[in-house]
């Protein structure tokens, strides 16, 4: 069974309006990589110029923030759901 990635509304313009994308992956990092390979326009909104996830982009495996698991090396199992959730930052 594939891994399900929930696409936040602002990014659906880059996934052919799909709100969920299914990928085959062993880790969270692999799953996000598979997503951006399939939908390359997503890449600039998830990754910075150095190829790292933008600081405000957070990834959850089921309901756990992967920062508190093994980050992008967190293993995924059949039926898991990955969510991409921004934190919102800014200022003058």
């Amino acid at each position: 069974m594939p891994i399900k990635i929930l696409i936040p509304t602002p990014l659906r313009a880059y996934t052919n309006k799909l709100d969920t994308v299914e990928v085959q992956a062993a880790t969270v990092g692999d799953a996000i990589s598979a997503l951006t390979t399939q939908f390359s326009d997503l890449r600039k909104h998830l990754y910075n110029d150095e190829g790292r996830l933008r600081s405000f982009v957070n990834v959850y495996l089921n309901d756990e923030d992967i920062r508190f698991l093994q980050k992008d090396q967190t293993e995924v199992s059949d039926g898991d759901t990955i969510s991409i959730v921004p934190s919102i930052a800014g200022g003058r």
Partner: protein
Amino acid sequence: MLRLNEKFAAAIRAHGVETYPHECCGAILGRDAGVAREVLGLVPLANRRDDSPRNRFEITSDDVRVAENKARDLGCDLVGWYHSHPEAPARPSDFDREHAWPWYSYIIVSIEKAEPRAMNSWRLVDDRSRYDAEPIEIIG
């Protein structure tokens, strides 16, 4: 076009005054209706940027999830975010641009000497190079 009821515009201004000289922030709930986007609610949120709240704000991903759930409960979408610029114009900074996604409406209200001034809405363009102004229509 962002259609904003006067009561919501007043609530954003009041939040900016309340937290002055710190930045306020919150979520905008609404729905896209043809060419216009209508605001149906606000979720005031805490500025989690304790180290520099006069010129920075942060809404954590956990708070974003709270706002998303409220939108879902109300049957609408989380369409954007508002924040204040104390003693600064109501336009996005480079720091804002680095931390944004397209599609969201970003409302900024300028607060000068604890008084609300201009309020503008902005949308990040697809290539992340700049924001375009999103006209606000005040209704009600």
